[in-house]
């Protein structure tokens, strides 16, 4: 290794259809350093790194590894150049042992000598301080152990440059500390590391240098010791932009949903929501901010009756007369039978909210097919509704008989939102309602939300764009790692403030200090 950079990317541009994921990015990684690649969701961090790992190929630009220009067209090319990437979704075979996963697909000489492989794995583990049992099966492992296997797999293949895509998203604080220790050991061994993250405290703790991307554009880089979380937040979120979203005030607010001590664990026993309490009020838009994967999905699904919760959790619905109904432990049908008009626009539009292979009319039917005594489903009203949604929301579709999976993302979303609003909800929940939509459609959706609010509906709006949340919502609940790190008044809150709450749990920091 000479004086040249380990990796240099020049003028990289990558587009997916009309979306520009990376725009003329220049990027450099030096030998023996840990670089944080910082940016909000959708800022193009992972896309940029995937081009180093051979998953994507840049539309424009050049890549140099150790000063030599290279063309990386497959993960194998990347391996051969000593580049290894640990993706967010681990690529491991569940029923194999750690050692078997590590040597998978390698063209080493000789037969399959498990003992020799285990010895080599142990050697790598000892050198960097990994805790790994080569003979343990993947399905018996915790998330952090699986991650260890992924890292060792990359090292086993002789990687000199390691890219970790949001490695701490699934780890406990203790596991995170351990990972950082290992990363520093690898750095001391001369390896170059990139950590993709949006957690500022981690950036400060582990990296030597920080590079920031915003909306696909390279904003700049600074040595970690010369910066602080406040400055980094400024670089990451940019200055507040005025969007001019109308925000009228509703005069007769009424409490609708009260969530108390909600705790949700996933199938692996990892807590996705921890002791979450808040209320949602009719005539108000409650924004939910947070890094993606902070528990937003579980929160909405728990209210919708799709997510079991731990004992002690309560979700109460308050009807017109002020009577309380427990929603937890009920499925969507029994919730509807209680008379609770709950509309839900889930994140996974075609996998949960709509039936991809059905046409518009049949998708309108999804929520109402049981109405009426007849054994036949009444398609007359859904058809009218479909036409109404198409007309009012300007859905672009050849006709009402087109399967919704053939519509574009924005039109799919309009169909879904249109249906949910048509149910005259008391509570309207939406997750990432404008993701992938163009600016005009987005505004149409904002207006619909506000319209519902002015009808006295309690709107819960999970979003990712802080500028929008600040102008659209009345209050904003900020989630961090499945916990509520604060509920703020959107009219007075600042973008920086929310950004900080998203990335570091204030309550936890205090606990740590005391």
């Amino acid at each position, binding site marked *: 290794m000479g004086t040249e950079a380990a990796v240099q990317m020049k003028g990289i541009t990558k587009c997916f259809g009309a979306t520009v994921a990376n725009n003329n990015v220049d990027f450099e990684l030096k030998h023996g350093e840990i670089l944080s690649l910082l940016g909000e969701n959708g800022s193009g961090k992972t896309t940029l790194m995937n081009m180093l790992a051979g998953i994507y190929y840049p539309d424009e630009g050049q890549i140099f590894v150790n000063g030599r220009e290279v063309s990386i067209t497959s993960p194998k090319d990347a391996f051969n150049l000593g580049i290894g990437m640990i993706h967010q979704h681990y*690529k*491991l075979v*569940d*029923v*194999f042992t750690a050692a*078997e996963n590590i040597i*998978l697909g390698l063209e080493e000489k000789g037969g399959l000598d498990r003992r020799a492989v285990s010895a080599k794995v142990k050697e790598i583990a000892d050198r960097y301080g990994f805790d790994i049992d080569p003979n343990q099966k993947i399905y018996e492992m915790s998330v952090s152990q699986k991650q260890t296997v992924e890292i060792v797999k990359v090292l086993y293949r002789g990687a000199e440059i390691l890219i970790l895509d949001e490695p701490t998203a699934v780890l406990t604080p203790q596991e995170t500390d351990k990972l950082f220790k290992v990363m520093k050991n690898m750095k001391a061994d001369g390896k170059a590391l990139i950590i993709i993250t949006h957690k500022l405290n981690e950036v400060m703790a582990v990296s030597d240098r920080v590079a920031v991307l915003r909306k696909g554009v390279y904003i700049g880089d600074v040595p970690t010791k010369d910066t602080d979380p406040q400055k980094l937040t400024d670089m990451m979120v940019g200055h507040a932009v005025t969007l001019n979203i109308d925000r009228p005030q509703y005069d007769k607010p009424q409490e609708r949903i009260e969530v108390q001590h909600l705790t949700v664990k996933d199938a692996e026993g990892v807590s996705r929501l921890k002791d979450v309490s808040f209320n949602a009020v009719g005539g108000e838009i409650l924004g939910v901010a947070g890094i993606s994967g902070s528990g937003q999905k579980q929160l909405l699904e728990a209210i919708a009756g799709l997510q079991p919760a731990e004992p002690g959790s309560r979700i109460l619905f308050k009807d017109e007369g002020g009577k309380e109904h427990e929603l937890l432990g009920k499925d969507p049908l029994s919730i509807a039978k209680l008379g609770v008009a709950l509309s839900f626009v889930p994140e996974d539009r075609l996998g949960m909210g709509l039936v991809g292979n059905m046409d518009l009319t049949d998708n309108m039917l999804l929520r109402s097919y049981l109405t009426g005594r007849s054994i036949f489903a009444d398609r007359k009203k859904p058809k009218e509704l479909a036409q109404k949604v198409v007309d009012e929301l300007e859905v672009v579709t050849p006709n009402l008989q087109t399967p919704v999976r053939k519509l574009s993302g924005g039109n799919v979303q309009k169909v879904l939102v249109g249906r949910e609003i048509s149910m005259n909800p008391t509570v309207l929940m939406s997750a990432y309602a404008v993701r992938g939509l163009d600016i005009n459609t987005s505004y149409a959706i904002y207006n619909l939300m506000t319209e519902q609010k002015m009808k006295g509906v309690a709107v819960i709006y999970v979003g990712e764009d802080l500028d929008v949340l600040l102008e659209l919502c009345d209050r904003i609940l900020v989630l961090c790692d499945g916990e509520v790190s604060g509920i703020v008044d959107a009219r007075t809150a600042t973008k920086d403030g929310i950004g900080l709450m998203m990335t570091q749990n204030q309550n936890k920091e205090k606990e740590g200090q005391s």
Partner: protein
Amino acid sequence: MTNIVSLLQAAIVFGTVILFGATGEILTEKSGNLNLGVPGIMYLGGIAGLVASFFYEKGNPNPNVFVSVFISFIASFAAAFVGGLIFSFLTISLRANQNVTGLTLTIFGGGVANFFGGSLNKLAGGVGQISVATASGGYRATTPLASLGAVGEVLFDHGFLTYVAIAVAVLVQLFLDRTRAGLNLRAVGENPGTADSAGINVTKNKYLATCIGAGISGIGGLFYVMDYTKGTWANDGTIEGLGWLAVALVIFATWKCVNAIWGAYLFGLLSWMYFYVPGLTRSSQEIFKMLPYLVTIAVLIVVSLRNKKENQPPASLGLAYFREER
């Protein structure tokens, strides 16, 4: 005593047919392909071997045992391999549904075999008149060990393919467990996306495993024709029944060839048990013949109840792989 000996002998004969079928299918399923064409493939293997020997021995006044055995073996393997190739091309390259393709292959294989088997019978002058005595004799030849009393009769009074079946099952198991190629193959069946990203050629692995697996299954049909029916052809559907049992055995053995070995003999035993259980009427015998299937159902249920990862089918069994859908 003689009863027990002949029961065990019969069990081993049927067991061997099933074992070949199951070993081939295990190899196939480990690559993620669920080939329900096993009965058809066994039909193809059986008839091809028979036809090859028939024409060799018909055209040759003094047929050589080794030549006749050799060409029938090759023909049998090759025909079954082609059956596997049809399945592979349709399901891997053209991504047709595996279940439907497999069932079609079973219809096709049964049709081909019974068509040519029937024609061969006519050509030879009637059912049971096909003469491939040399080849059949070669397949049925035993060693002197067979005369070692009851033990010898049970263990050694069988043609060489009986022992080949065990050897192949052990070899396939060793291949899957102990070699890098076997590891890569299993990865393809478990998680083709992961295998692909680790640089393993998914398509090549699936093709090879399916075609070679089909070839092995086909030898089961050959053994049935040459050993059990002594080189004749009967359109009685027994091969199809044994073929489905082979598919069932794969589940019973929880995708492990070693379990398939004893499982095959157990299935053979269960298939013949009715014949030797005293006091059964002809009708209650038929109820007894349900045993292998009921046992398989029970295993299937237990496997799904216990949910132990090692005993589950390969995770991507039955699914086509298309890289861009990752």
